[in-house]
């Protein structure tokens, strides 16, 4: 009876219940059925100490079902385990340049102690010049930080994609007291709104005055994104859609004015042009301290180096376009465009401006007269002063002569 009872029990179970149970019991045999890790290590013994050795080889190389396997195996997908990191990495400049995980991380030899952190020996493979400059810097000599101490290679952007605040954020992680240390600088907070650390602390880097379109949001000024641009201009692809910019990749004040006028239709009075003084060609020694001159005239003068290198930043779908800016700027723009940007020394008329007014041809002169902008205050003011001085001198001389 007992036997009959057992048979009845199995007969009463439905196939829908049995099948998953059987599959579940057999899963380990199917999944690792082909090759066991011990078998792999027979040939690849060196991989034993890897941080990945906690996994079985077929966790990543699931397609290996027998030994010997094919010489070239398909690339395993790191995102199955490192999903977040791979997602972040996919928008980094490294990923956009076609670099994959394996270029920096030797997954088989990843040392357990060092974990995933890579060192400068990896970075130097591509960034030789940068590493050489850095090796001679105070940061390196004092052993302050390695590359990854400042830069996260998984979400790194190119230097030109970082605005002044993002650049300052890198330094201020260690140099938290930078505002107090720069108390000697008049209007410290105002200066740091427009500058980044390396503007001064890397004398061999090239500095530029960069302009960008921004939107006023309460007290904040938010740089326009690619989406903002295409939302207003209705154009996909590159922002550099202005025909004349495409033909001649240099922005004149007229080009920027035209673009401003179009954008203003979409954003109204909230639109403005902002500026920063940024490093645009990096020499990777950011630790120069003693030779930094505490001289205001270094920047507040028409001779400041960044006037010779000015750019308009236009956001692209990926990255930013740095468009060289030609001619006198800022002071020549309509007021509503550059309300916020004042840099002492910029509105000052120079000998070269006056010379140019006399030497240029009629059509060029008309443009130049417009480009002088706020410099006209100096020009007219000085001319009037000179005229009055001449008049007064004549009056004096005439008076003396007649009295004799």
């Amino acid at each position: 009876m007992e036997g009959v009872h057992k048979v009845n029990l199995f007969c009463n179970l439905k196939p829908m219940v049995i099948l998953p149970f059987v599959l579940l019991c057999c899963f380990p045999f199917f999944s690792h059925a082909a090759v066991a890790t011990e078998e792999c290590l027979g040939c690849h013994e060196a991989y034993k100490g890897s941080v990945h050795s906690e996994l079985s080889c077929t966790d990543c190389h699931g397609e290996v079902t027998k030994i010997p396997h094919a010489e070239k195996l398909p690339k395993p997908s790191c995102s199955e385990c490192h999903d977040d990191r791979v997602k972040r990495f996919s928008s980094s400049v490294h990923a956009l340049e076609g670099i994959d995980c394996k270029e920096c991380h030797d997954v088989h030899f990843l040392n357990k102690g060092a974990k995933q952190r890579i060192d400068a020996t990896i970075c130097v493979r591509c960034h030789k010049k940068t590493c050489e400059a850095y090796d001679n810097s105070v940061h390196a000599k004092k052993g302050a930080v390695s590359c990854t101490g400042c830069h996260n290679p998984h979400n790194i952007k190119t230097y030109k994609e970082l605005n002044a605040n993002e650049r300052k954020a890198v330094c201020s992680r260690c140099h938290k007291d930078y505002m107090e240390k720069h108390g000697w600088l008049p209007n410290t907070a105002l200066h740091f709104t427009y500058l980044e650390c390396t503007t001064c602390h890397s004398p061999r880097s090239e500095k530029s005055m960069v302009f960008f379109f921004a939107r006023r949001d309460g007290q904040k000024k938010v740089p326009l994104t690619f989406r903002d641009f295409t939302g207003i201009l209705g154009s996909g692809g590159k922002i550099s859609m202005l025909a004349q910019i495409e033909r001649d990749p240099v922005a004149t004040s007229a080009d920027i004015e035209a673009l401003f006028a179009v954008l203003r239709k979409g954003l109204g009075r909230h639109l403005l042009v902002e500026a920063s003084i940024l490093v645009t060609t990096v020499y990777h020694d950011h630790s120069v301290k003693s030779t930094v001159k505490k001289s205001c005239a270094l920047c507040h003068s028409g001779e400041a180096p960044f006037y010779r290198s000015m750019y308009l930043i236009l956001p692209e779908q990926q990255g930013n376009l740095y468009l060289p800016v030609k001619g006198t700027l800022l002071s020549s723009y309509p007021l509503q465009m550059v309300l916020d940007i004042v840099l002492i020394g910029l509105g000052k008329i120079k000998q070269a401006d006056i010379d140019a007014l006399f030497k240029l041809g009629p059509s060029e002169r008309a443009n130049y007269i417009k480009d002088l902008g706020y410099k006209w205050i100096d020009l007219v003011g000085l001319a009037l002063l000179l005229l009055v001085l001449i008049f007064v001198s004549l009056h004096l001389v005439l008076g003396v002569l007649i009295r004799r």
Partner: protein
Amino acid sequence: MKRIFLHTLTIRVWHWVNAFIVILLAITSLQLRVPDIALFGAYKSGVLIHKYAGYAMAASFMFWLGYSLLSGNVRYNYVFRQKDLAGVFPQARFYLLGIFKGEANPFVPAAKAKFNGLQKIAYMSTMFVFTPLIIMTGIVLSDIFYFRPLIYSIFWGPRMVDAIHVAVVYVFLIYMLIHMYMAIFLGTRLSHVKAMIFGYEEEPVPENPEKA
């Protein structure tokens, strides 16, 4: 020669203190505008001197305004009246021609009528338009963070404040140039300058044509 009392002690002291502040501001402004000219050493020193001299100028102006309103200085010497208008053209003709021909000055100052029509136009515009504009824009520029809301609500941004400040300063400098020239060279033996020191101006007594 007759001596006419023109300037009270208060006005004389204020004038020279104010002149010192204006000269300090003018010199430092040159360094601010042309940073390569380091008259006061570091640019920062120039900026600070200009800033505090500016505050002193504001205080000096407020003092002058209060004193002038209470003492009648504004009422007697600054308010432009019908008869002042009539005197403008003869006065201008005198400075441009008559002075060279040895003609007498058509205007004779008195303690309660110090300025001729031309002077009234110059001093009134300087003290009630240009100086207040320079002071207001200067104070705003002295701390653009603190005055930020004001800068946008009244002045259309810091660039415009700067532009107004500099443009009016040029007008003020032209006024200063003419003022100093006329004070030093157009009186009789520095009579205008002496009047601002001692209070009394020595005026030549016009010859009586009947007696001559």
